């Protein structure tokens, strides 16, 4: 949304000039945000107000600003963003602007351009041919000669706004809900997923191994089969236990059906990983008939892309696991475009990693039995995350029953 900063000063309160300016903005169908307000203490002291004025399109904004100028509201001398070239691949200019995941605008040649793919902790790379484009690029991906925004001049970030009103959770006053009726929450999430799909947006699911341990594998597989899941991020553990459960009927050696440990079960997942390595990939194992059910099976069958990111304590790992973590995150980045809702299911590290690369506009629901995980996600900057503290097995089962009642 195009926006400009204007300033008005003088006896603007007693002269009703401020009231008039605000009325004009609203009357023009535009919006404002008070950036700075200094009211004079006595009636001889002048007041000074700085407003950010936003309109739906550039033409409306220019016309409105001209009208506001008549009433004394001056455009604040905003400057263009300062650009500096990178001197080496993977190294940013010292004063680079570090991004947030919020909608961000960059001023170039007197006009504001939106950042195409908001992501936190990145740099802003500007290309001007054929038309100006501003993109976030992680540090390691910049190339020598690319021009990067430095300093704060000419950069504007839309104020973070938590979802409010009827959407998404009117009754969820707190960010983390440990004491809320769970079935209501699940119903709300189901409604949000339906709305997301109607808007043509994609659902990203991030899974931890507890999804399989708690017996929610078949329910999640059902959601994949019914076409609800558009992309899946996980680690070696989730995929390994999903495959183990479907090949040997155990998760970390514990029978998924009976809940009892099986003899020699502690090595079950290693044997399955070993066989998948023999097949060369999960897809090959599915196509060859070694894996016949489960979340990974359904992903392969339905062509749902998945990214498995590795870690230092992984067994195996599975051949599909990206052991270069930087490459893993790069691959995850390629799949976040078009995502409208992210469901983080009992995952800490992958949830935080995913939160890092999602724009703030993506509705994020973090389901975990441990309240600290939800808090951690929010603390890492994913302020849009709404937490649901509950057992992930029960949550996924209830969600699948609502979305795929068959």
């Amino acid at each position, binding site marked *: 949304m195009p926006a400009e900063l204007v300033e008005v000063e*003088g*006896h603007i309160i*007693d*002269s*009703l*000039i401020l009231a*008039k300016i605000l009325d004009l903005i609203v009357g023009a169908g535009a919006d404002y945000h008070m950036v700075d307000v200094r009211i004079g203490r006595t009636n*001889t002291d002048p007041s000074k107000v700085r407003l950010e004025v936003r309109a739906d399109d550039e033409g409306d904004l220019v016309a409105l600003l001209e009208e506001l100028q*008549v009433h*004394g509201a001056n455009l604040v001398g905003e400057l263009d963003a300062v650009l500096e070239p990178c001197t080496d691949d993977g190294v940013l200019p010292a004063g680079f602007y570090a991004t947030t995941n919020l909608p961000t605008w960059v001023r170039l040649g007197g006009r504001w351009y939106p950042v195409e793919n908001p992501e936190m902790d990145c740099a802003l790379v500007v290309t001007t041919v054929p038309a100006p484009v501003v993109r976030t690029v992680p540090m390691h991906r910049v190339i020598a000669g690319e021009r990067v925004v430095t300093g704060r001049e000419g950069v504007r970030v839309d104020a973070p706004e938590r979802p409010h009103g009827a959407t998404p959770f009117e009754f969820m006053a707190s960010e983390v809900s440990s004491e809320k009726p769970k079935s209501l929450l699940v119903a709300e999430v189901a409604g949000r997923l339906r709305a997301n799909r109607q808007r043509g947006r994609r659902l990203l699911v991030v899974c931890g191994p507890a999804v399989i341990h708690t017996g929610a594998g078949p329910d999640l597989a059902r959601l994949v089969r019914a076409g609800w899941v558009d992309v899946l991020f996980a680690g070696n553990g989730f995929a390994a236990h999903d495959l183990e459960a479907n090949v040997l009927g155990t998760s970390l050696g514990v029978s998924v059906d009976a809940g009892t440990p099986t003899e020699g079960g502690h090595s079950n997942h290693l044997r399955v990983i070993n066989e998948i390595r023999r097949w060369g990939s999960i897809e090959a194992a599915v196509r060859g008939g070694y894996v016949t059910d489960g979340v990974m099976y359904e992903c392969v069958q339905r062509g749902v892309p998945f990214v498995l990111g590795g870690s230092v304590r992984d067994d195996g790992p599975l051949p599909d696991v990206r052991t270069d973590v930087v490459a893993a995150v790069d691959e995850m980045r390629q799949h976040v475009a078009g995502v409208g809702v992210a469901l983080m299911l009992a995952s800490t590290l992958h949830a935080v990693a995913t939160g890092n690369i999602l724009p703030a506009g993506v509705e994020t629901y973090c389901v975990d039995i441990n309240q600290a995980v939800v808090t951690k996600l929010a603390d890492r900057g994913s302020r849009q995350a709404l937490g649901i503290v509950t057992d992930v097995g029960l949550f996924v089962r209830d969600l699948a029953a609502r979305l795929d009642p068959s």
Partner: protein
Amino acid sequence: MSAENAWGRRYLMCPPTHFEVLYEINPWMHREVPVDPERAREQWEALVGLLRQAGAEVEVLEPQPDLPDLVFTANAGVVNGPQFVPARFRNPERHGETAHDVAWFAERGWRVDELPEGVAHEGAGDSLPFADVLVSGYRWRSDARSHAPLSAITGVPVRSVELTDHRFYHLDLTFCPLDDRHAITVPAVWDRYGTAVIDDLVPEPLVLELDEASQFVANSVVVGRNVVMPACPPRVGRVLEKWGFEVAVADVGEFLKAGGGCRCLTLALDVDLSGGGARS
């Protein structure tokens, strides 16, 4: 009981030696309607006579060739005690007046404090004191953004009023402070915010109809309890009389051809806003 204006007993005026309608910068001006120089001179001298009769002193600014509107001294600037804030004219046709105005004030010991460049403000034509504030008009000749620096320079709070009708291009065609309780007002040509501000400021306004305002009734000069007016409809005269004012009508028809009346032809030299606007 109302108190007379503390100012309005000493005026700067400029004889109409070079007055004519050479250009058109307001809807009243028509180059094809010629000014009769003889009548203009007689009317101007009659106005001076009425003001002196009312008890005012009149000082004279030397007329200049090619500056026909120098007669409208009200627009020279804002006087505030020992301080003179020269106008920044909107139209280039009047830019040449400023040097003569500044010279006159500087030679007589006024401190000249200028408004920042790039903002238009046409002096007392768009700024009149009432109570302890300066009521200032904007849109056609003065910029709203001149009000903050004007207030900063003079130390006087400004109340801004938008003038919505191009025919009433200066505040002094729409507002005339009579004393500390009364003023002639024309809210029909103000925006509703300005109207609300003046409503709040003036306890007893004499509200003019548009046809009355079009006769330049508000463009009057007040000297104590005397009001010198370009025209005085009977209704207005009765109200002024009831409030204790004595009315004199000055025929300024030649000057109306340029869109200026009695007030436009005068600039009060005894305005001092630092100590309040009225004396009791």
